[in-house]
């Protein structure tokens, strides 16, 4: 009796298996899915076609850059940078928005020093400069970067501008990706297309330098404190950074790039120097 039940259930299972494999073959499932996605994509295609914009491939080998951009944007290339501007009727209007990518050697200085100097520079030279945000983010193919968002008044047309910048170091080179546009009419309007451009950016990494780029995974401290100057003790690999706006000196372990502690000093610490013989650090409390 038990044997009969076993044989019967075995047959049933076999039948079910044959049934399923006959009923819904793999390629038919595949056809169904691809048929559905075809219709989705064809809808999108119609939408894109109406704008008559195609995406162009672009590469700039000397800075290891590959990316895509829409054909209605204009490209201006220089030795170490490229700027893409949204053109209208053939004329370039800076207020409509442009995306620029530039690269220069990092000189073994940490990312926060480059970003900090950049911000100091903007504060000095851009009228009504306001730093709105400063965070760690990603762009392109999962590249970690420091992102800052700021606004200023353009000296040529007296219009308010909004800027987003991504800063990262890859293979000993600083990469600065910048989107700027007139703040009220153009910045948000162009953001969706700009996000697509920035997400298409791919920076080729050279294998031999991979370890170096991993040394700067992200910013470990608050850039809004205006890091100003840096001193290194080569004996124990400790870095001391003055933070102009927080009246503190950050102590960074050069082996891990982690901030160990912040030391309260006088007001607006600027210059810093170290005597590695007795491990004493001197901080100029400026104004």
């Amino acid at each position: 009796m038990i044997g009969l039940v076993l044989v019967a259930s075995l047959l049933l299972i076999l039948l079910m298996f044959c049934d399923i494999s006959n009923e819904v073959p793999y390629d038919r499932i595949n056809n169904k899915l691809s048929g559905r996605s075809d219709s989705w994509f064809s809808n999108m295609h119609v939408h894109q076609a109406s704008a008559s914009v195609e995406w162009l491939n672009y590469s700039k080998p000397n800075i290891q850059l590959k990316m895509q951009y829409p054909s209605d944007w204009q490209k201006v290339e220089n030795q170490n940078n490229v700027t893409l501007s949204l053109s209208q009727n053939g004329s370039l209007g800076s207020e409509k928005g442009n995306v620029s990518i530039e690269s220069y050697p990092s000189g073994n200085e940490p990312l926060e020093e480059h970003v900090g100097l950049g911000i100091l520079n903007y504060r000095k030279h851009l009228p009504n400069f306001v730093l709105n945000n400063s965070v760690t983010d990603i762009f392109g193919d999962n590249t970690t970067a420091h992102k800052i968002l700021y606004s200023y008044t353009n000296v040529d047309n007296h219009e308010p501008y909004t800027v987003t910048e991504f800063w990262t170091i890859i293979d000993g080179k600083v990469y600065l990706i910048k989107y700027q546009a007139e703040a009220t009419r153009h910045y948000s309007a162009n953001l969706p297309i700009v996000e697509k451009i920035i997400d298409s950016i791919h920076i080729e990494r050279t294998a031999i330098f991979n370890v170096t780029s991993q040394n700067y995974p992200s910013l470990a401290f608050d850039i809004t404190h205006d890091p100003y100057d840096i001193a290194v003790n080569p004996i124990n690999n400790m870095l001391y950074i003055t933070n102009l706006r927080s009246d503190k000196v950050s102590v960074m372990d050069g082996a891990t790039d982690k901030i160990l502690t912040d030391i309260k000093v006088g007001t607006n610490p600027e210059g810093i120097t170290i005597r590695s013989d007795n491990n004493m650090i001197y901080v100029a409390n400026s104004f």
Partner: protein
Amino acid sequence: MWLTRSNTVSVIDGSTNSVLSNITVGLNPADLDTDTLEEGLDSFVFVANTDSNTTSVIDTRENNVISNITVGNKPAH
């Protein structure tokens, strides 16, 4: 602004990461530098006091100012 202008150099002990002392120097010390051991000089730190047109010389063995040298206008680095 003028009245609250700072005029100190903080000395941090790198082994404890704490401030050992604050040395009074000239007005608005913007930057400072030290002689390197290779140069074979004594243990001095030189401070550019931007708003008093002087350079303070700190003896790092005693951590006090041994001299204020009058220099040109607005020394910064």
